[in-house]
């Protein structure tokens, strides 16, 4: 039967903490990412470099160039965070497309109305992951605004008593910050979760080969959503560092 659930299902519990299928796959992706990063840092000191090193180097240069067009000079301060966002989201998006993710079912004692739940599920197909990433981005943009401009100059963007018009603009800015959290998390979650659902439903409609073009499309969408998340974060950090002048 078609297995679509908005929430991630817990597979087992560790001292009462539910470990869901997205946590399992995110942990595996994390270990893979650390191994890749260690491989890159070992290869960079050698004379004869591996070909995989050049591939990762090309990817890093591409992302660095993308962000440099936003920041111009302060890129080196932001690149660790933004590069991490990009690669974490990219690997998590693509990991949901690996064969076996979402289809290997396991019988757990946690599930109430179904007896079998998928063992693995894409990390970013869980609203918890994307909400955490969105919170990190928005809170960090507040931090970087306060650090660059000073607390009172930054608060003047939200609380401005110069005129009634500026006061309402400040209220709208405050609401807009909260709506950024919702927008970031739901954009990423919606794209990846909808992609999973479409692949599953297409396979149910026409069982032969119809999921293949959708799989290719989802690879592309995963890449684009990683770029969009990090570029949008970069633009908002830049915006937070500008002086609020009217």
């Amino acid at each position, binding site marked *: 039967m078609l297995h*679509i*659930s*908005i929430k991630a299902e817990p597979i087992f519990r560790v001292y009462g903490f539910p470990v869901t299928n997205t946590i399992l796959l995110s942990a595996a992706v994390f270990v893979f990412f650390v191994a890749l990063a260690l491989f890159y840092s070992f290869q960079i000191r050698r004379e004869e470099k591996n070909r995989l090193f050049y591939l990762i180097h090309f990817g890093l240069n591409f992302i660095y160039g*993308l962000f440099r*067009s936003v920041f111009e000079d302060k890129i080196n301060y932001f690149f660790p965070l933004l590069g991490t966002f990009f690669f974490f989201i990219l690997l998590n998006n693509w990991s949901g497309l690996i064969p076996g993710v979402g289809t290997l079912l396991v019988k757990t004692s946690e599930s109430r109305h179904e007896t079998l739940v998928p063992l693995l599920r894409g990390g970013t197909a869980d609203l918890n992951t994307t909400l955490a990433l969105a919170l990190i981005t928005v809170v960090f943009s507040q931090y970087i605004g306060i650090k660059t401009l000073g607390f009172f100059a930054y608060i003047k963007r939200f609380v401005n008593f110069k005129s009634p018009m500026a006061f309402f603009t400040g209220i709208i800015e405050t609401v807009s910050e909260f709506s950024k959290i919702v*927008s970031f998390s*739901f*954009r990423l*979650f*919606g*794209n990846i*979760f*909808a992609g999973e*659902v479409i692949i599953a439903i297409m396979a149910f409609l026409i069982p032969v080969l119809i999921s293949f073009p959708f799989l290719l499309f989802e690879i592309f969408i995963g890449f*684009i959503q990683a*770029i*969009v998340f990090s*570029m*949008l974060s970069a*633009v908002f950090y830049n915006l937070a560092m500008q002086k609020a002048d009217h």
Partner: protein
Amino acid sequence: MSPEAAKQLATALAIGLGVIGPGIGIGIVAGKAVEALGRNPDAEGSIRATMILGIAFTEGLAIFALVIALLIRFT
């Protein structure tokens, strides 16, 4: 009307009506980007980056509608 039928109707309406606006919006953004590219082919990198950003913003709204449609259908 049974709840099942209402659910199916609601799903179709949610996604169908919800994507009209962003569809027109993305068309406008991409069209203006192509127009700007025609007028100034040197700024290709900057135009392309800004266009991707604009498309991502408007596509987000369509994704909100899709999430609501999926929520109605599967819960």
